[in-house]
């Protein structure tokens, strides 16, 4: 007994933090899992009757005659989320790769300054950063004022409340997650490999394609996953830049727990998001392991 106490004594340090996360994060996630198999209560909450309704609701709806039929409305939202998140990943890559590549070439002090400049916006308020884009994109916003002022267009172009605006907002929010891992991969890259490639008469672009990109790919994969996960569950960008009309998974979940008061369905949606996240994290782990075991110099 005293032996057990003695051993537990060592764990006192990790206990408070572990307790907080287990009780207020793991336990709630378990409850969400349980709730996804229950029946919705009348005013939010749940009734303790087993039901798989929440999951069938994802794909099937009862019509007027109480017949179950295939319904794609939620599937559309899921695909829209995946689509918008994918566009956000590609956008971040297109903008983030050249930036990471350029920064990795700079002298050390300048590199550190540029990296700091990338991380600063990340630490500022997400809501405010997204709100800034309303000022830029709306009909009387900066871009439209500029275009009309230059006489390029008479009517304002609708940019706000589109899927493009959501994707733009997500790129803006999460592009640092793309740049930093790519930078980390490129910074470790041995310059001599590029010299060797150029010596062998490969031009700059061939070298980029056949030498740099393959060596940077673990960073690119890591960045893609780090952007994809939060973009998929995003709530603020779809809400503010999509006007709450182009629903995405994140906003749909939020809706179930507030106005719609269907907690089991909200829980089922949360489980769907969590399974996608788990798959992504698994891919991430595999990617990391392969990277560690792979090419070293």
């Amino acid at each position, binding site marked *: 007994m005293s032996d057990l106490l003695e051993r537990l004594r*060592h*764990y*006192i*340090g*990790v206990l*408070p*933090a572990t307790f*907080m*996360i*287990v009780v*207020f*994060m793991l*336990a*709630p*996630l378990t*409850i*969400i899992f349980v709730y996804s198999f229950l029946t919705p209560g009348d005013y939010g*909450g749940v009734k303790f009757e087993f039901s798989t309704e929440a999951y069938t609701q994802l794909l099937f709806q009862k019509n007027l005659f109480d017949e179950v039929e295939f319904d794609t409305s939620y599937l559309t939202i899921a695909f829209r989320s995946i689509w918008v998140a994918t566009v956000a990943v590609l956008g971040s890559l297109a*903008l983030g790769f*050249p*930036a990471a*590549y*350029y920064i990795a*070439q700079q002298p050390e002090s300048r590199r550190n300054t540029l990296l700091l*400049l*990338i991380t*600063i*916006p990340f*630490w*500022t*308020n*997400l*809501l*405010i*950063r997204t*709100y*800034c*884009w*309303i*000022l*830029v994109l709306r009909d009387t916003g*900066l871009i439209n*004022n500029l275009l009309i002022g230059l006489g390029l267009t008479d009517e304002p172009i609708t940019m706000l409340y589109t899927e493009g605006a959501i994707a733009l907002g997500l790129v*803006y929010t999460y592009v640092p997650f793309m740049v930093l891992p790519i930078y980390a991969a490129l910074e470790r890259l041995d*310059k001599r490999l590029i010299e060797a490639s150029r010596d062998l008469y490969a031009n700059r672009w061939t070298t*980029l394609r056949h030498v*740099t990109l393959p060596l940077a790919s673990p960073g690119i994969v890591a960045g893609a996953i780090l952007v994809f*996960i*939060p973009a*998929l*569950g*995003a709530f603020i960008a779809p809400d503010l830049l999509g006007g709450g009309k182009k629903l995405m998974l*994140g906003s749909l979940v*939020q809706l179930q*727990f507030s106005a719609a008061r269907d*907690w089991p369905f909200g829980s089922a949606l*949360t489980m769907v*998001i*969590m399974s996608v*996240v788990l798959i992504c994290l698994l891919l991430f782990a595999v990617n990391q392991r392969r990277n560690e075991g792979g090419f070293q110099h």
Partner: protein
Amino acid sequence: MIRSSDRDIRWLPGFNWITLCFFLFLYLPLIILVIFSFNATRSATVWEGFSLQWYAKAFSNDDIQSAAKNSLIIAAVSTLFSTVFATMAAIALGRNREIKHKTAFGGLLLLPLMIPEIVTAVATLTFFTAINLSWGIGNIIIAHTVFCIPFAYLPIQARLRGLDASLETAARDLYSDRKTTLRLITLPLLAPGIFSGAMLAFIISLDDFIITMMVAEAGSTTLPIYIYGLVRTGVTPEVNAVSTVLLGISVIAVLMSQWFAKKQ
């Protein structure tokens, strides 16, 4: 004309311009927000002269004052708890050889970073409702403390890794007991990491919107929640003014965090 042989062998045409665009993309929207918070009229897109009236309006607004007070209390208390817990965990995991499954503990501490915020938000709401916990801003403080732990933990852990353990061994050799070594050697050396982590925890809590929105009960409005309400009803210069203040606090806190993290 620069001959291509003078350039870095890794140079690629156009990449410097894309990088410039990248930084403009990151900062222009924020700069626009700040500029128009000083505009003389209600317009948020046409510049009509310098004025501080929106700041005066925002600061004298009772709702904003009480939201700011709530935000500061929540951020201060959550920072205190999460930093203390993170420091204890970092020291235990970094220095105590008797602890098994360190990777599992380390992974658990970073769990809040890996789950999309909306999931954390609804899970916490569900849990508080299930156990009937209704402590007003206490609920928000609990949720923020959990979410802030990894942000406080990472800089502290990084600092501890960079510390030479032989200093602590030397103290122990000179008959200092565990507690004295911790108080006189480990903690003072770790202090910059602790401050760095605390700064990050503070801004994460101060800026959090999604978790707070789901968990907050009526009467516990924070600044981001208040701003969200205003943004939903339309663009006003007051929003720009309040947002600029919040933005300024975040930037100062990050820079301080960086400064502590780099301190020798």
